[in-house]
């Protein structure tokens, strides 16, 4: 069963890793639904997909709202068909040292990066169990296993996501649904653009391949896990980080 013609939902596809992933899945023939938080973002996703010659379109989605998730999944199912490939990519950072971290900084990162995965998996699972086929790929981070100064909220959310990945993988394996994660290292996107020059230099000394990764290099790993070629891989977290977290 190839993914040609299957509907793939990619959250946070307006830029960075999400956009590259949307294109990688489009290239494999999937009908790609990419989401952004704004109408203009959704519009540019639609245009981007059309420019590349891929099927699909952009939708507005806020992953922190169950109502938004439910209505988008319903709309996708009516317009195309039930999404059988789900890439939980939308995510944010709100870094702070723990002693200064405000409760809303903690809550918003956990909500956007972790609870979102519960919401979306729950809303799309029925379609996959019915089809007796499904792929979920959660975008974690190298920080889930390595930890990082000032990212206790983010690391907790991503480590939680990896635990969720393994539990879900067991729950739905009998329905031929695989659940995996990809843990990127430092990738050149808006998220890492904000790093100060000095920190950037110091960071490179930690990466054997001595450069940041490109969004496409994450997208390739995600596309593999979504493909038929990865049918015997489930509950796994694939590290894609230029060698900075070898174990």
């Amino acid at each position, binding site marked *: 069963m190839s993914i040609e013609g299957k509907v793939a939902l990619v959250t946070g596809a307006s830029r960075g890793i999400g956009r590259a992933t949307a294109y990688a899945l489009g290239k494999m023939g999937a009908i790609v639904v990419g989401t952004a938080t704004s109408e203009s973002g959704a519009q540019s996703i639609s245009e981007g997909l059309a420019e590349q010659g891929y099927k699909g379109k952009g939708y507005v989605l806020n992953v922190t709202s169950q109502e938004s998730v439910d209505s988008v999944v319903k709309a996708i199912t009516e317009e195309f068909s039930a999404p059988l490939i789900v890439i939980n990519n939308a995510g944010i950072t709100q870094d702070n040292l723990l002693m200064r971290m405000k409760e809303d900084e903690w809550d918003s990162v956990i909500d956007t990066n972790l609870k979102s995965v519960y919401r979306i998996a729950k809303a799309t699972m*029925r379609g996959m169990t019915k089809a007796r086929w499904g792929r979920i790929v959660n975008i974690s981070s190298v920080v889930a296993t390595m930890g990082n100064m000032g990212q206790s909220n983010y690391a907790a959310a991503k480590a939680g996501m990896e635990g969720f990945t393994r539990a879900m993988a067991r*729950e*739905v394996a*009998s329905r031929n649904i695989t659940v995996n994660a990809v843990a990127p290292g430092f990738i050149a996107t808006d998220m890492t653009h904000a790093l100060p020059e000095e920190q950037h230099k110091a960071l490179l000394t930690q990466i054997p391949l001595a450069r940041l990764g490109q969004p496409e290099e994450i997208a390739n790993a995600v596309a593999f896990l979504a493909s038929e070629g990865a049918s015997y891989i489930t509950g796994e977290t694939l590290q894609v980080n230029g060698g900075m977290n070898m174990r």
Partner: protein
Amino acid sequence: MSTIEERVKKIVSEQLGVKEEEITNASSFVDDLGADSLDTVELVMALEEEFETEIPDEEAEKITTVQEAIDYVVSHQ
């Protein structure tokens, strides 16, 4: 239009992959028809879709046989 009993049995048959002839009203999903926990959740969801109703978790737990499913649907028409 098929009866409620026929519709319930059809869903049970599809969901659990057993032949309709093998399903009796007394059949227990788990003990007789080999359902696991995920099957029973899916079965309840399929019943909800077919009969356009919502079955609360406390009620769903009590539906363990074909007859109990039929009774639930009949009393919530």
